[in-house]
């Protein structure tokens, strides 16, 4: 198969490894009920704190004798569902705000970019997340909405900046002179031409959302136990750090790798979609 030079340049060994890793994680997550060796919440104190590579338990067991591999697999479901939900929400919300703020001048710009985006940015994100969890209680929906709102300003700013320059392009004027309705100009002409950095940011925000979800779960503000989640697994593992470090290190490593993989995927997408960005860096 002959690939275009741009695609060939975007593919590196590291990126390939990371994409393969993500595919593995997604497959394990999707087919967790079939593939997982054990019930992730079934306790068996008799075999508690088994080390890695012990018979029957590839990644060992935790302090309640639950299989860590199965918990990672089911934890991925929650983790990725929340991260994806939050990121999609942030993308839709932020892109819409940026698009409107960038295209229309005057009051719309003030309301979208100053009153909404800048106000959200003024709060420390963790504090805002804590506030949301305190008000509405922990759980997936709260997390998705809270993180979606928190991450929206990044998308709004990126879109806004892109729209400011794109709306002065001649083809936008051309569309206007040929009678294109404003809605078409916004969502066809302009959006199509600002989408590349938004897609890149999508991947990077996935990484940030996983990090924040893990952080909140670690603090006990995320997913409610006994539902497994990578962040709460780290939180439980820290008590056995000196004696049985794998209880903490396995979920920790999975979190780090997944965040890294999404970040590197973002870089690859940037090279694929926006060859100009590579020259600048």
């Amino acid at each position, binding site marked *: 198969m002959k690939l275009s030079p741009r695609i060939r340049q975007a593919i590196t060994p590291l990126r390939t490894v990371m994409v393969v890793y993500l595919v593995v994680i997604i497959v394990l997550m999707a087919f967790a009920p079939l593939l997982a060796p054990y019930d992730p919440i079934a306790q068996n104190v008799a075999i508690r704190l088994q080390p890695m590579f012990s018979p029957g338990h590839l990644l060992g067991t935790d302090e309640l004798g639950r299989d860590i591999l199965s918990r990672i697999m089911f934890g991925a479901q929650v983790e990725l569902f929340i991260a994806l939900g939050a990121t999609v929400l942030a993308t839709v919300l932020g892109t819409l705000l940026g698009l409107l703020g960038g295209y229309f001048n005057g009051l719309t710009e003030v309301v979208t970019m100053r009153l909404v985006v800048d106000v959200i940015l003024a709060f420390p994100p963790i504090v805002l997340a804590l506030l949301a969890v305190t008000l509405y209680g922990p759980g997936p929906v709260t997390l998705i909405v809270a993180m979606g709102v928190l991450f929206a300003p990044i998308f709004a700013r990126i879109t806004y900046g892109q729209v400011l320059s794109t709306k002065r392009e001649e083809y936008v*004027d051309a569309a206007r002179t040929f*009678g*294109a309705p404003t809605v078409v100009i916004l969502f066809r*002409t302009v959006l199509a031409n600002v989408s590349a950095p938004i897609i890149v940011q999508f991947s990077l925000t996935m990484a940030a959302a996983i990090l924040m979800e893990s952080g909140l779960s670690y603090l006990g503000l995320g997913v409610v136990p006994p539902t497994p989640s990578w962040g709460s697994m780290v939180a439980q593992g820290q008590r056995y750090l000196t004696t049985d470090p794998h209880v903490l290190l396995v979920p920790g490593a999975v979190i780090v790798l997944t965040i890294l993989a999404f970040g590197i995927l973002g870089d690859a997408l940037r090279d694929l979609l926006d060859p100009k960005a590579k020259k600048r860096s």
Partner: protein
Amino acid sequence: MNEPLLHVDGLSVEFQTPDGWRQVTYEVSFRVDRGKTLALVGESGSGKSVTAMSILDLLPPNTRRTGRILFDGVDLVPLRDKGLRPLRGSRIATIFQEPMTALNPVYTIGHQLIEALTSHHDLDHRAARERAVQLLRDVHMPAPEEKVDHYPHQLSGGQRQRAMIAMAISSEPDLLIADEPTTALDVTVQAEILDLIAEIQERMGMAVLIITHDMGVVADVADEVVVMKDGRVVESAAASQLFRSPQEPYTQALLAAVPHLGKADDFLSAARNKLRIDGVTATTPLPETVLRLQDAVIRYPGRWRRPGFQAINGIDLQVARGEIVGLVGESGSGKSTIGKAVIGLLPVTEGVLEVRGERITGRPGRALRQLRRHVTMVFQDPASSLNPRRTIGQAISDPLLWQGLVRDPRARRARAKELLERVQINPDWSDRYPHELSGGQRQRIGIARAIATDPVLMIADEPTSALDVSVQAQVLDLFLALQRELGFSCLFISHDLSVVETLSNRVVVLRHGDVVEEGETEEVLHHPRDEYTRRLIAAAPVPDPEIQRVRRAERLAARRG
């Protein structure tokens, strides 16, 4: 003194691509004698700029040169940066097409001149500054003592190019490489800059290597001409000989394609004359007015409480049915502003704008949308006026959707193919994207889009100024054929008098937002009444060295007198 100053011998340049080395020029050879001017001519992609830039190795790092470049007997090809640096800007100076990007925007031109001077000469600051002012005086910069402290953006395009030239000649070079030095300038300014280069050349005895696509410029300045195509030298000859009897078919075609004033036997002109006769017999005794502007004032919107810039100061303009009206003027004359106002991108601040007898001024959005159905526009640069994310088939059928003319997607596709055929583009290409087409093909798409809704009036804003001459001729030919067939009226905006001459029935000359002259094309261009029109016509270069020589003498005499 038989040895030439610069002898390029079998020079090939290759670019490294992911698919290996790709050759862009093939064994180019030419000689530049001391004190003489050699013009490197060709269309885009001919390799003329690459060849010129390779002399001082100003190419990107992924290139390699083979062959010999003998400058004053020394081969420059094996020299790296270190060996070339003593030559750059000192014995060989370079000026570029766009002085705004070649000058550093954050320093005054005086600062940049002084920097250039002190790097080559042992001068203290005061002496260098005096020399800088003197250099600006030498390039006829108005008020040089003041301008020396100006930043590039405070100067006009012509003044910036003068500053660049001052910088280039500061080291009294033996060779000046000028890469399209006047392409970004208006014709009257172009004539002044070319006069200046000729004057300096005579005074300092330097050789000039000028790269240009404009045969008129070649005729004006060159002693020797090298014609390039696809990286190869097609023909090289003395200028007088080349213009009199071009040997190669490509050169002949290139010269034939150059539109210039008074080219009466031109087939486009013939087509236009025929059209006029047809038009007279076809229209009713009282031709319908398609566009009417009366006392129209156009002001750009101001910011906050500052008033906007008034670009058009109350003009009258009419376009009759089936008529092509040429709107000519230099940059800043307001010609594009009028086009934008008629199409509805700018409001007409005062006065009347009527399309087909319907008043547009002071009407809300609905009237404007109705108007847009009947008025369309072909933009100057098809690369930027076509949405890069829409296929060409979508681009030309989108207006039909937006105007609600053809709602069925299949019918739109069929219409798009039909339109592509009309503009002589393979209809199977309708799924291609604009960047997959050449400049000329893209502009055909621009024209197809503009005729899609069967307009009454088309605004064409410099539709061919971004194209090579041979392509320009084809596009204009197509444009005229379509206009004859479909009978739309056209407001043809151009800075190029010869293009307007071949196309339009009437000409309107604009200057600083006022109409200075208007009338039948032949009347205005061959018997101009206004002084400014006369200057404009005299400044447009003609591809004939004899005529250019006479004109230069006249210009110089006029300036002295």
